[in-house]
């Protein structure tokens, strides 16, 4: 098994493009090393992207924020200004695993692991985040909701890596929130996850919204109907009921020991409503 740690995007892309056997990109390794240990994967080549400066940086760009694919959850938590602009994205990333896992786990890894239950992905989708990919044909931007196609299936082409994410500029009176359900208080995988981002106009009415649900379908969903259900409202009781109905309608979850279809569908509605109320409260005071 070969290990390479190139210091440029071009170097990483060249290695991945030239590889003939199974390859894996290493960011935080919190999924990859477990999968290697369990013999789920046995790559011929591991390309560690953490020596590439772009993957490790958080910076303001065009009024928004660019976050490197290999920035860790712990680093996001310590970034006060990013946390103020996008509290939902940061709280979602910080729900992944323990303090120890936070020291390694990354947004790029969470997305590219290809799990529908990834905690940071609904928050990124609700935020309207765009992933910047680099490959043999150059760079391209893809909305996060279009990166994952299904469990372990990504829209990445051969030789492509996720370099960073761009969170868009934030209008005044905007905020976001992420909630998940797990059977315990810490250290578990989402049974349902809900991300909501809202913008209010000067009168406190919702003028823009994005809603995303995780772990209720084969991929993390952007739920346009749920956003439409609250735009133009102040999230009064009637709007909350419409939001819950829209969230419920989109669920196509699996039925397993961690949650039945009925349970996941109910919880999706409840979490979407609660996340929206938190985002609303944050937007009013932002």
């Amino acid at each position, binding site marked *: *098994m*070969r*290990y390479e*740690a190139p210091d440029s995007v071009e170097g990483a892309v060249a290695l991945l493009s030239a590889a003939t056997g199974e390859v894996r990109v*290493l960011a*935080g*390794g*919190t999924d990859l*090393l*477990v999968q*290697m*240990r*369990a013999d789920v994967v046995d790559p011929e080549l*591991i390309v*560690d992207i*953490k020596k590439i400066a772009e993957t490790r940086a958080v910076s303001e760009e065009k009024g928004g924020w660019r976050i490197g694919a290999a920035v*860790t959850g*712990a680093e996001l938590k310590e970034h006060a200004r990013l946390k103020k602009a996008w509290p939902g994205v940061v709280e979602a990333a910080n729900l992944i*695993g*323990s*303090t*120890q*896992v936070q*020291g*390694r786990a990354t947004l790029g890894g969470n997305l590219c692991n290809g799990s529908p239950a990834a905690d940071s992905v609904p928050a990124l989708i609700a935020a309207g985040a765009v992933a910047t990919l680099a490959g043999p044909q150059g760079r391209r931007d893809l909305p996060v909701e279009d990166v994952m196609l299904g469990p372990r299936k990504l829209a990445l082409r051969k030789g492509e890596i996720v370099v960073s994410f761009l969170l868009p500029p934030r209008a005044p009176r905007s905020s976001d929130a992420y909630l998940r359900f797990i059977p315990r*208080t*810490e*250290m578990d995988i989402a049974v349902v996850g809900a991300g909501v981002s809202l913008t209010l106009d000067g009168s406190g009415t919702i003028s823009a919204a994005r809603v995303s649900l995780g772990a209720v379908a084969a991929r993390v969903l952007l739920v346009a109907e749920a956003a439409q259900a609250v735009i133009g409202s102040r999230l009064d009781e009637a709007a909350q009921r419409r939001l819950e109905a829209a969230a419920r309608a989109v669920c196509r979850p699996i039925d397993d020991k961690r949650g039945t279809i009925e349970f996941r569908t109910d919880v999706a509605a409840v979490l979407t409503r609660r996340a929206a109320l938190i985002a609303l409260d944050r937007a009013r005071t932002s």
Partner: protein
Amino acid sequence: MAKHHIETVVNGDAVEFLCETEETLLDVLRDTLNLTGSKEGCASGDCGACSVTLDGRLVCSCLVLGCEVAGRRIETIEGLAKGEKLHPLQQKFLEHAALQCGICTPGFLVASKALLERSPDPSEHEIRFWLAGNLCRCTGYDKIVSAVKDAAATLRKG
């Protein structure tokens, strides 16, 4: 292929070792460097028994490859005591009987030290959340939390 030749710093000492790609930092610490204080519990990042710091950041050494640590700074449980003098956390774990079988203890100590470096006066809530990735099947955690609080008080007095 040839093994990786890695130069790094462990507990303040310059160290070099050879490793295969698939060897974890925990494998290297225990099997190559004979630093067997870090324990392997789950080997999947769930139990925290292998906790170390990497450039000051708390991580599970079972989730780090040996070849990733070139040029980094690693602190393990072996770096806690200064010769015969125990670190206040170690002393308080003994006084509070915060261990029974002891397998989880090195991980708890390393994780607690990382907490107190960031937060010298943590609340019980903060301690319990910070240590959620360290599993103990003996103590029921209360004695560990008490020991960490007491060690924090000792360290604050200097």
